[in-house]
Every structure is written in C-alpha cells, then in structure tokens.
C-alpha cells in the first residue's frame, strides 16, 4: 500500500502518482466503513440470539466479571487520547514527543490485550458453551485481532518515522492508523455495553 516517492519535478506527479497517497487514505476509509458492517453483523447476531434465548447463561456460569474489563476499557479509551496527543506533536514538528506518545499508545494497546488474555484464562466456560460462550469469544476474539493489527500498524509507522524525510511529503499512514485505532476503540465501547453492561 505504500506509495513510491515521486520526485516533484516528475511530470507524471501532476495527475497520477502525486495524488496517490490521497487515494490510499480514501481507500482505507472506504475499507473501514465496510469493516464496520462485519461487526454490525456480529452485534446484531449476538442481540438476536440473546433476546431469543430461554437460558442465556450456561449451567454453572453466573455472568461475566466486569471490573477487569472496565479497567481495560479505561486504558483503551485513554489510548485514543494519547494517540491524538502524538499526532498533535507530530503536527508541531516535535518528532520525539510524537514517538513517545505513539509508543505509549502501543503499550496501552498491549496492556489491553494482556488484560483480555488474563480474563480469558480465568473463565469457566469455553467457545462451545452454547451461544453465550460462542458469541463472547467470537466478539472479544475478533476485536482482539483488530487491536493486535492496530499495534502492528503502529509499530510499522514508528519504524517509518526513523526513515529520513518520510513524513515530509505526506503522513497518510499515520492518519490511517489513527483512524483505525479510534475505530477499534468505538467498537470496544459498543462491545463492552453489549457484553458487560447489558444485564438480563
């Protein structure tokens, strides 16, 4: 997806390659809109199954513990703010502050994944424990994959910030990663409400 840098003197920059980075961002936003539908499908599937269920919780399960996921939620939501700060410093040209806050965002994402893993390992039900277990692991697992992807994308952007002159022409990768991260964040908030806040 990375565009080949074109020397400004090249005549083709006028209409072709020069706008290419812009196309990347447009394409990425279109992709994100499409990606949100798959979450919408999972959310509505969860809601339909839950509303129709006679016994939602499998035998021996009292419900989900919500304290640890709440801490996780706070960490993930704050990581969106640290990311905005990082972008702010990048806009001011303070590249080291950008890297610092960017790395902090990555660490918060990683902590979220760690918290998720701890929660999973303490659960008494599995993927095949009825629709309750199935939807829980499907939703959190699919969201977790997106968090992992976001962290990897951030790592890539961090590495690219050390390439001299990489951010001179454009910064589409950073904007795209940040959009993706906010998207993952919003999805988590909906997911948290559906899984943990919604009581029968």
């Amino acid at each position, binding site marked *: 997806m990375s565009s080949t840098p074109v020397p400004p003197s090249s005549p083709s920059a006028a209409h072709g390659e020069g706008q290419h980075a812009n*196309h990347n961002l447009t*394409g990425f936003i279109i992709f994100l809109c499409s990606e949100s539908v798959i979450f*919408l*499908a999972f959310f509505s599937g969860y809601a339909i*199954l839950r509303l129709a269920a*006679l016994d939602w919780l499998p035998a021996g399960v009292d419900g989900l513990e919500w304290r640890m996921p709440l801490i996780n939620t706070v960490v993930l939501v704050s990581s969106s703010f640290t990311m905005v700060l990082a972008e702010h410093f990048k806009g001011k040209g303070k590249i080291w502050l950008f890297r610092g806050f960017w790395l902090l965002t990555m660490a918060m994402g990683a902590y979220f994944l760690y918290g998720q893993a701890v929660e999973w390992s303490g659960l008494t039900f599995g993927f095949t424990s009825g629709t309750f277990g199935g939807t829980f692991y499907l939703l959190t697992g699919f969201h977790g994959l997106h968090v992992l992807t976001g962290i990897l994308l951030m790592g890539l952007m961090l590495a690219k910030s050390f390439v001299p002159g990489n951010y001179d022409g454009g910064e589409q990768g950073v904007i795209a990663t940040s959009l993706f991260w906010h998207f993952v964040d919003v999805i988590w908030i909906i997911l948290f409400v559906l899984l943990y806040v919604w009581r029968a």
Partner: protein
Amino acid sequence: MTSTALSPEPPASWRRYFGFSTDAKVIGIQYIVVAFFFFLVGGLLAMIMRGELITPEADLVDRTVYNGLYTMHGTIMLFLFIFPVLNGLNNLLIPTMIGAPDMAFPRLNTAAFWLVPVFGILLIASFFLPSGPATSGWWSYPPVSLQNPLGHLINGEFLWVLAVALSGVSSIMGAVNFVTTILRMRAPGMGLFRMPVFCWTALAAQTLQLIGLPALTGGAVMLLLDLSVGTSFYRPEGGGDPVLYQHFFWFYSHPAVYVIILPVFGIFSELFPVYSRKPLFGYVYVCLASFIIVGLGLIVWVHHMFPSGVTQWMRNLFMVTTMLIAVPTGVKVFAWLGTLWGGKIRLTTPMLFCLGGLFNFVFAGITGIMLATVPIDIHVSNTYFVVGHFHYVIYGAAVMGVFAAIYHWFPKFTGRMPYEGLGKLHCLLTFVGANLSFLPMHPMGLMGMPRRVSSYDPEFAFWNVLASLGGFLLGVSIIPFLLNMISSWARGPKAPHNPWNAIGLEWLLPSPPAEDNFGEHVPTVISRPYGYGTGEPLVEHQADIERALTLQEAIR
C-alpha cells in the same frame, strides 16, 4: 510506466496476459477469460442436470451426486462466473471511461484477481474429496449444511465456506479499488453528473458489495465455526438459531443480484444511445435511480424468508419494500424505451443482445413482483417458479447484457472487429434457448414441481423436456461465441478507434489503448455524455484528437 507513456504504440506482447500484470486492461481480460472457463464448468453441470431431468426417473446420476451438481452449479455461476466477468468489465471500462491511467491501487487489483483462480481451484477440488462437494444448495442453509456424516475435518462444505470467504475478500479488495478510482481519478471537467451511466451503476453496485459482503462473511465465519469447531450459533440444540444464518445470507445475497444487474443496467444505458443515435432519455434520473435501488435493495432481504417463520408484520413490510424497487427500475426501463423511441436504430449484435436482455428483464421483473406478494410466494416457494424467475434475471438479462458489452467493447480492447454473422447467430441461439429453457419452469412451478429434485411426477414431463431442449440449445449457443472470440482476436479485421461512432472518452483512445490510456494528455470534459445528434463535442479539442487518431490508423 514513464517509458511507455512516451510511446503512443499499444503494447503487443500476448505474454503479459499470462502473468502478474498490474495493468487494469490486462487484468480485465484475465478476469473475463477465467470467468468464461468457469462458465463452461458450471454450464457442463447444468447440462448434466437437464439431461437427468429429461425423464421423470432418477436414471442418469445418483441422487447425492445431483445434490452436489446444483449446489456447485449455483456457486460456480455466481462466485466464479458472473462476479468475475463483471469485475473484468469494470477493470476495462472504468479507467478508460473516466480518463484514468489505471486503477487507484494497481497491485491490490492484481491480488484481487489472482484470488479468483485460487478459490476456484479450492471449490472445484471438493469434487475429489471422499465426502464429495457441498450438497446443501448454493445458499448452504443450516442445519443441512452442518451435517458432516463422514466426520472429516476437510469436507465439501468446509471448502465451500472457505471459497466463499475468499471470494468475499477478493470482491472487497475490488470494491475499494473501483470506488476510490471513480471518486478520485476522473478526468478534468468530469463531474459526477458528466460521468457515463456505466460508472454510476458500477459505483452503486460496488457500494452494495462494501455494505453487504461483510455480513455474509460474518455469517460464513459463524457457519464454519459451527461446522468445524462445534460452536452452536446455528444449532438449535445449543440455543442457536438456523434462521439467523438466513438473515446474514440474504442481507448480502439479495443485494448481490443488484450488484449483478446494476452494471447490466449501465451497459443498456451505454448501448441504447449508441445504436439509436439519441441522447439517453432522463440521464440524471437513470443515475439517481441506481442509488435508490441501492437504498431499497438493502431492506428487502426477508422476502426470501417468507416461509421461514418470520412474523406477519415483517412479511408485510418486506413485501412493500420489495414492490417499491419496481419504481426506480421502471424509471430505467422507461428511460431506455424513451431513448429507443424515434431513434435511428441499428440492429448490430450488441444492440440485439441489449434488446433481448431488456425483453427478458421486463418478464423477470413481472414474475419478481409476483414472488414479492406473500400469498403467491408461500404457494410457489421452493418450486421451479423461483428457478425460472431467477434464471430470467441472471441468464436472460444479466448474461445477455454481458455478451452485449463484450461485442460492443471487443474492438476497443483487442484492436480487432468481431464477426457480425457469428455474433447474430449467438444472439439468436441465446435468446431462443433461454426462453425455451426458462419459460416452461414457470408453469412447472405453478403446478407444484419442487426444485432440487432428480426425479419427479410424470405429469411434469412435458415441460421438463422443453426446458431440457432449451438448456441444450444454450449449451450449443456458446460454440459460435467462442469461435467468434478466438478467430476474430487472432485474425479479425483491424478495428478503428471508434467503429460504432460512439461518444465517450474510451472511444478517443486508439484500439487497443496504450498501457496508461491517455497518459499525461487527459482531455478536459466539457459536456454531458451521450450527445448523439446534438453535434456538441464531449471534450476540448475533440476534432484534433480524432484527426490524430485517424491519421495514426491510416499510416498503420
């Protein structure tokens, strides 16, 4: 890219069609050729089925084999023929029609294309599994699709879900590319309301792909987990709901028929003005109607589920929304009739295909309204009436439109003229074959013959014999097409840049166009498309561009 931009000569080597090319025009032809390979495979399965149904007894193939035949026929024709062939046309036409050098993301385009043979081979490979291919129909409803009697992890259904998921990935990659290209790479002066209708319909269809496909993919992931991991999303014994799958499936697969038919509407809208020498009647309304179809198309899916135990208010609601679709569609049909009215009609092969396709489409639209009516639908659900309606839409209208497009734009992208005689023979055989095969399915269905059976009551034999003869005629009809394509590409007469006297950016390019189309000399669009009979030029310096092209052809 820069080296070829300087030379006006089109690239000549045929080898580039056999490798990983990033040129949209090469990828377009690759898509179309691969799609027609799978068309022959899917068609062969249909021939075996019609051979089986020519007698009431199940005598030609085993019943389990028959289940595999119709499942694979439907899956191959939709995911490996019609979507790839339309993506091929999108690749050829979108960049040339809007004056872009290539797609927005050429490498993504290559990857999207090469996924097609990959999932095609995966799907075909399921014929060679000990448990055989998937046998639960192209919609793969649970609980039938969740049965795995041999208990193998890799079974026909598993490969089916995998292939459909990969097809979804490929289509999403394509859709992101087409939408970005249309939105951001149009020629100077080409506002949205100066864009050819084919691009409007492609934009509408790809928007539907972006909204609908993720739902099917999500549903398919859950089906795969139920099948292979043992979750119970769709298993009632674990609290799941098989009807939930139907919602996911039809939320995409009903709009999928608009993904198929919208570009064909675009083809009709492009071709009728050319061959009746009149501007498209109601251009703006035809463009907007595409997006009204998108909006309504997303809220009609439950009409496939009237007998699936949905509540009465849902049945009523979705009956009304489905019937409303007839309004924007009717706008288009009347726009085409208004274009033809009083025009100077030329009955070339592409025009004949368009007229035949329009005739079949109107018929399919009428049976569609019948099917949307809840009482009729419940009566004819799961009978041949549905099969007949669907094949009128897909073969009668969409495939005929695709053939029209191929004959119309063949000279542009190959540089050779197709033979008219063979083309007209192809058109006649297709039109007669389609009507002879699919019309008898309607009385058959009204009499109550269920679909997906290999043996039936002898009272249905007469209509089945007719349908089988029509089916075999369709099988024969493909022979003049293939002969025409191969021989005219190899040694047909050289095509001028604008053999049909058509108006459009693609006709201001040499045939075949250079690798980067207009390169750096993209003309500025100064008027609406389809200015037939008005004498208004489409672009600045149009006369100079045409003179240069004619000169170039004279010295060639």
